[in-house]
């Protein structure tokens, strides 16, 4: 089989899409998660239910949404509700299977910082803040994180915990009675990290052509790699075609 060219962004989207199961109810964010969900729906998960935090259920966007509240999400959707309803009836009540999260920092136990680098009162860098992620991280059954693999993005401990992963270890979530199971995978451009029994993120897969050393050198803690026995399947021609021709023809996110 001839190999095809793909970018690291396409690689991350394709691998994220493959984590979704047919029938999953997904709380979708714009950008890469939106592309991953729409790709999954057009390939192996035709019954994927897409919910957007702006209050749109069963969205079938006809064009690439460029903001979380794009009007294309509404036209042709199955339902629209208020934000209070989307966060209570859908998310808090336990009707969401999957949430996608992102942030400037993800630490060893999957905690995410999207709020501030440095001190909160005297920030070095002020980031946008939680948005919907604080509750998505706590209450979606499973969460996935998509992020480039860089040392500054993977510190030992986040400066500010915007959304909870496993705190300082597995069991903490149960103690707090959080209904969701927390981050189940971090998809990077080098490979895939997943929590072990202690809640620590360990490397479980590498993408084709990437090395353990690359993964280790770009992680801010001592990354355990002894469970990394898989090389991910490269994106298929069909996956890349859907992404480039159907979902993001102008190359807005696929740069």
């Amino acid at each position, binding site marked *: 089989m001839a190999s095809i060219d793909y970018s690291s962004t396409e690689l991350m989207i394709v691998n994220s899409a493959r984590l979704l199961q047919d029938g999953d109810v997904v709380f979708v964010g714009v950008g890469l998660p939106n592309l991953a969900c729409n790709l999954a729906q057009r390939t192996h998960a035709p019954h994927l239910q897409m919910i957007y935090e702006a*209050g749109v259920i069963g969205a079938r966007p006809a064009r690439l949404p460029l*903001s979380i509240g794009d009007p294309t999400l509404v036209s042709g959707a199955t339902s629209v509700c208020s*934000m209070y309803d989307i966060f209570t009836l859908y998310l808090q009540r336990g009707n969401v299977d999957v949430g996608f999260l992102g942030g400037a920092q993800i630490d060893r136990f999957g905690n995410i910082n999207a709020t501030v680098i440095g001190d909160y009162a005297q920030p070095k860098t002020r980031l946008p803040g939680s948005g919907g992620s604080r509750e998505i991280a706590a209450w979606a059954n499973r969460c996935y994180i998509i992020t480039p693999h860089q040392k500054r993005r993977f510190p030992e401990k986040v400066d500010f915990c915007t959304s909870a992963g496993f705190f300082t270890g597995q069991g903490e979530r149960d103690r707090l009675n959080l209904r969701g199971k927390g981050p189940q995978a971090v998809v990077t451009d080098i490979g895939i990290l997943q929590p072990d029994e202690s809640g620590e993120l360990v490397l479980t897969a590498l993408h084709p052509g990437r090395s353990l050393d690359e993964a280790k050198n770009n992680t801010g803690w001592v990354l355990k790699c002894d469970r990394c026995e898989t090389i991910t399947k490269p994106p298929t021609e069909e996956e890349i075609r859907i992404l480039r021709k159907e979902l993001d023809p102008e190359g807005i996110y696929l740069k």
Partner: protein
Amino acid sequence: MGKLCSLKEAVSQYVHDGDLVYAAGFTHLIPFAAGHEIIRQGRKNLTLARATPDLIYEQMAAAGCARKIIFSYMGNPGVGSLRNLRSLVEKGLLEIEEYSHFAMITRLQAGASGLPFLPMNETGAFDLENVNPNFKRVTDPYSGKSVVVVPPLNPDVAIIHAQRADINGNAQIWGILGEQKEAAFAAEHVILTVEEIVPEDVIRSDPNRTIIPDLIVDAVCHVPFCSHPSYTQGYYDRDNEFYLEWDKISETSESVQQYLDEWVYGVPDRDVYWKKLGETTHSRLAVHEQMSVPVNYGQY
């Protein structure tokens, strides 16, 4: 004629220095025209609350209207950072009070329902609770467990944009509903801006679509294209190009001031602003029809 008045009159009467203002709309229906009118009237020391401050509060803060921002996501949606606001916050020049989206709208829901507080399930993300004393914990009297609560948010004035309303302020909204209803019911006063004023019969033909009832509305202003560069479902598209352009404009305070001079201080109202945008922009933002199927309410 009912509560009809110009936006200029409404702002002059219902927005005062020092007020807590909530300009509603989650990406959709953001009342930019009202923000610009508040800037032109030179309001000061406002506390500006919105889940996403968006460009509207960035512009109002840059114009010197704001003392404090209450928010849950301070970014340029789909683009990146709100550079000017971010810089004001990093320099300690603007007070902030921060929530998650859910905590923010829970505050509005409490305010809209006349409740002293509302509980939320545990998230485990304690850092935000530690920096915002409005998050409190109480003991659930039924289970004995600890519960997070937030107090009501009751703005002095809410500004709500809608597709259409009658002259009394019965407003119908479709598309993303955001926190329009909650903000309106939570506020002391409501300024309603609409794309179209319609006869009461039109409203009465489809009562399920009425989100804001006249009894809580103080002023009704006919302001077509009020939301640009945000959008109004079925009327005009979101101006994503402008949101991208703003990323450059907001790089320096000089270019922000230039923008305000030309597009806010330099125009008297939204009509002139919209004409000034020009035909190319108008046609770029025009929307093709996609009608819903009417329902039968029945004659009884």
